[in-house]
């Protein structure tokens, strides 16, 4: 069920949020009528961009986590409970350490494409919420300053390489003691 919405077009889903968050029949209109305030603005704000980003990148976080938790030995949880640990204790000391590689993988998978995101801030943020993708568009397509745009792209790649290096270090660090899952 989590995957089904993502079989439809990314653009269509993003434009649908334009309607849902919009002032006419959307959330902003609803909030206006409930609170009685004149103008509730959601579109064109970082909140709208954040909702769009969370919506579109949710599966990239869910899938690695799902794979990690699916592979987890359920008897460990049962053993922990049988030995008297509570729900929170079992989660903190058994489930979370096992799920940590999936959490890190998901975070990387979300972080890197999100850095270059351009469509969502443009549609839901009206271009006011500025991400690296918008800066690249300004340089390449509007200012036609390709060297500046290329420098930004190199900066983006450097951030990506540093993040990935940290990720590889994390995987290697835990290799001896933890079963890791990469994609």
């Amino acid at each position, binding site marked *: 069920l989590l995957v*089904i919405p993502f079989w*439809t077009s990314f*653009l269509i889903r993003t434009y649908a949020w334009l309607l849902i968050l*919009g002032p*006419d029949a959307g959330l902003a209109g609803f909030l206006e009528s409930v609170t009685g305030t004149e103008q509730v603005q959601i579109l064109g704000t970082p909140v709208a961009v954040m909702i769009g980003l969370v919506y579109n990148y949710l599966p990239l976080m869910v899938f690695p986590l799902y794979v990690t938790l699916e592979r987890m030995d359920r008897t460990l949880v049962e*053993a922990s409970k049988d030995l008297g640990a*509570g729900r929170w204790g079992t989660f903190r000391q058994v489930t979370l350490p096992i799920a940590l590689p999936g959490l890190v993988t998901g975070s990387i998978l979300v972080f890197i494409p999100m850095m270059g995101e351009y469509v969502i801030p443009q549609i839901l943020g009206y271009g006011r919420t500025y991400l690296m993708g918008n800066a690249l568009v300004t340089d390449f397509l509007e200012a*036609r300053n390709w060297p500046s745009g290329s420098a930004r792209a190199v900066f983006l790649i450097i951030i990506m390489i540093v993040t990935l290096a940290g990720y590889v270090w994390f995987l290697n660090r835990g290799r001896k*003691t933890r079963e890791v899952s990469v994609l």
Partner: protein
Amino acid sequence: VTAPAVAQAAGRGARRPAARQRVDRWAGLVEGYFRFHAALTYAFLFLPIIVVVVLAFNARPRRPSWEGFSLRWFSIALATRSSATPSPTASWIAVPNAILATPSAPWPRSGSQRVGTRIASRVRRADLHEHHRPEIVIALATLVLFATSSCDLPVDVRGSSSSSAATDDHRPPTSVSIRASSAARPGAACRGWTDAGRSSADLFATRGGPSARSPGHSCCGDLSPGFLLSFTFSFDDFVITTFVRGPGSRRSR
């Protein structure tokens, strides 16, 4: 990690024997919360789709408020040429994608098992890095490459630059999809082949190729999910098309 963690958790639990009973009383509440959370997540995921589906039948063209049921937008969409052209382009991108991803996808699993830790680790790292390139950077790199190359080709010959950028961008997820479907097969056969002295090329010819063609009863095997995924991605691609066919893509010289 898990065994000491369990012991630690158990140790704490043993010091507080009444804790388990106290937690169990909240079981219904916790389950209710998770049900509510799941329902909220599904509502969040499906709401945009429902809105779009409902709106497609709305008679009123401009405002999102409901003005009555109508099917005329479907007939208009089907009659427009712009609705038909993406299909061949997306197929054109999806076919090389699936073909390119087929040998590379099972490689880290099947081919690197007997090549030594050092090489296998490098292959895995390269494979990992391949999956983490922002789409926008690929689009820009393609634009710069085509626009500044010494050959006198225009940047976009029948969508060639868009197609190549899209192929480059969509190959990693296609490769993941193919790898996921090939991962269901046991790796023991592969190890058996290599232990029997077969080379990597032999291994791919005997294992990778046939598995890509027909695992089980499917005629297209791993290729079809890869093709479909790439096709879906290419069908509504916006970023690559905007960049590669946008301003600056036509050279002045």
